[in-house]
């Protein structure tokens, strides 16, 4: 089959250009307003996910290691927390959870045995949970610095580093 190139006319192009609609600022303001109504529910979901995470983290499959299924489950729950923490601008929780993602992802890829690193992250997440008493800026800074040391100790890649580097545009394309 030869390569075909189409130049499609999209229905959405015609629809969005119709008279009326909203400007960028109006749309963003409306969307932010809609989101603000979900903050309380978001906090509940974050708390629920942290609790679900605790159940897995404090009951490893073996004495010194988590099973791959458990690590995958940790990543799924963390992903949700990162999304919500980022959306509602809980910076400390966002960074702590990302760090846990980096460690869990690293443990899964390298098959290293380590439970303590995950436990430390879990405790940190409990402290920066939006429903917990707020920590001071200095305490958060110290805590995040300690979490960074764990990652450095294992020599794991930061998913966050790749997150800043990878974009849709610059992933090398496979030839057609």
């Amino acid at each position, binding site marked *: 089959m030869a390569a075909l190139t189409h130049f*499609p006319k999209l229905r959405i*192009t015609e629809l969005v250009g119709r008279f009326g609609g909203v400007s*960028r600022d109006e749309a963003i303001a409306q*969307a932010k307003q809609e989101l603000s109504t979900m903050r309380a*529910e978001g906090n509940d979901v974050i708390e629920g996910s942290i609790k679900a995470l605790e159940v897995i983290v404090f009951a490893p499959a073996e004495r010194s290691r988590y099973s791959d299924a458990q690590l995958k489950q940790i990543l799924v729950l963390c*992903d949700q927390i990162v999304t919500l923490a980022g*959306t509602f601008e809980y910076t400390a929780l966002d960074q702590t959870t*990302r760090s846990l993602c980096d460690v869990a992802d690293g443990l899964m890829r390298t098959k290293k045995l380590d439970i303590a690193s995950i436990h430390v992250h879990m405790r940190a997440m409990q402290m920066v949970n939006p429903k917990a008493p707020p920590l001071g800026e200095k305490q958060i800074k110290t805590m995040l610095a300690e979490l960074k040391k764990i990652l450095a100790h294992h020599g794991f890649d930061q998913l966050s580093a790749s997150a800043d580097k990878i974009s849709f545009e610059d992933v090398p394309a496979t030839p057609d």
Partner: protein
Amino acid sequence: MGQPRLNLKNVTGLLVDRDAFTRGLVAQMLRGFGIEKLMIAGTGAEAKAMIGGNCPDICFVEGALEDMSTADFIGWIRRQTSQALRFMPVIVLTGYTQLRLIAAARDGGAHIVVRKPISPQTLFDRINWVARVSRPFLETPSYIGPDRRFHSIDPPDEKWKRATDAPSQTAAPSQAEPTAQAS
């Protein structure tokens, strides 16, 4: 210059995400932008069943579906006979732990990948971009989807294959004119 205006009132969106709360978040943002018709699914299979009856104008799908790979889901859309469906803009929403799937989503035929957490600004700009920027759509034995080339990048060794490829030849028409007259 004025801000871009989007009239999304009559646009039908399809949103696929396994997480109910994330679905709610994105749906609220889209409603805030003015989208009134939203089809919401939790799995790829559910989304396929919904598409069977209606053809959405834009699709938002998470980077790692529960029941199938997102690339497979997009590939299924791209192989449909309805032109409106196969050319439909697909925006992939990828979570922090799904970043390694970006290349797979792109090669599956997605229009663009947006990293979660999604801000209303980012989402609005991406919708505006996919709706307004026309991209050729390629159909090859191994790939069906929008042209993946975003940039025209200089060759690493700066050795151009054709004389006309060199930027100095095309960028400066005033310099090229005398040559044309001489010939």
